[in-house]
């Protein structure tokens, strides 16, 4: 009895398996061709994602550093760069220095406190009258002339010049 069931089972399994032939199988690519496309697609997506993340990080870094830099730059720009808006925009906080700095040229601003404090009346007359002419072009190029010792000596020599006149 057991042998009969086993033989029947063996025959039935062989008959069922024999129905499956190579012609009935659908076309499937080999695993090497079928599996390559998926990792490549994944790697492309990974490359795109990494590139997008890098671009975003660079953008955020640029925005953050860009917003941090203009804060210190903006106060510094009106001083040396734009001479016209500086006196108009800041007459209230720097009242006395701006009055003395406005007639002088932009290049001589660094030496103004030194030269103005010792000889206030002499320099005013000296720098205002001839400084606007040809000496104004020579003054920015030679900074030692506007320094404290050099500026005071021509002032003292100025009375010497007047007798020669």
């Amino acid at each position, binding site marked *: *009895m*057991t042998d009969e*069931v*086993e033989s*029947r*089972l*063996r*025959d*039935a*399994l*062989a*008959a*069922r*398996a024999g*129905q*499956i*032939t*190579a012609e*009935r*199988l*659908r076309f*499937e690519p*080999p*695993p*090497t*061709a*079928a*599996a*390559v*496309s998926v*990792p*490549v697609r994944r*790697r*492309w997506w990974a*490359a795109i994602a990494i590139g997008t993340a890098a671009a975003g990080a660079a953008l955020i870094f640029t925005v953050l550093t860009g917003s941090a830099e203009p804060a210190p730059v903006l106060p510094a720009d009106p001083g040396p760069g734009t001479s016209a808006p500086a006196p108009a925009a800041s007459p209230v906080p720097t009242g006395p220095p701006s009055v003395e700095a406005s007639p002088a040229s932009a290049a001589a601003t660094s030496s103004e406190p030194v030269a103005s404090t010792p000889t206030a009346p002499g320099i005013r007359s000296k720098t205002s009258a001839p400084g606007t002419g040809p000496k104004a072009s020579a003054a920015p190029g030679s900074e030692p002339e506007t320094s404290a010792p050099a500026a005071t000596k021509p002032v003292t020599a100025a009375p010497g010049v007047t007798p020669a006149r």
Partner: protein
Amino acid sequence: MISAPPFPALFAWLRGLSADVRAAGRGAPPAGAPAINELYHSRRLSLVRLAVLLVDDLPTAEDVVQDVFTALYRRHGPDLRGVTDPNAYLVTAVTNAARSALRRRRTARAYVAPPPETNPAAEDEAMLGENDREMMRALRGLTVRQRQVLVLRYWSELSEGEIADTLRVSRGTVKSTAHRALSILRERLGER
């Protein structure tokens, strides 16, 4: 003058990426892939037959076999590195995948009506003799484990030890499962 790339690993990765894209565009397998391709062409039909005996319908059996080969390629590469016995590996993988497919189908049947293609095609049924159809119907009423044991034993002609290794159970379990399955078949076929 071309200077050295600042990120050699990045450039190597990009070169590999472009090479893979070229290979995929040509539809040609990468170099050194014939091992798994030869195995695929030589063993696919017999594995589909084994899967058909386990899951009944041909489309599911083809899906099972294709998934097994794809997983084998992804895990062990085209040269099948680390696989000592590819045939035994494939039989085990197909058996497990068929079991998973039957489990999913059983879960789906609990919620929706079974699709018509999960049963053998009508012409396949008609081509079988009456005794074979009766036996296949009785076989379908067994549990998955009992069916696996009987198919591996009476169609794949595996020994009890090989079946035990394939199913990762003890030989005693194989023996008792086969005995119980044959008893059930005997009862059902004797009733008719």
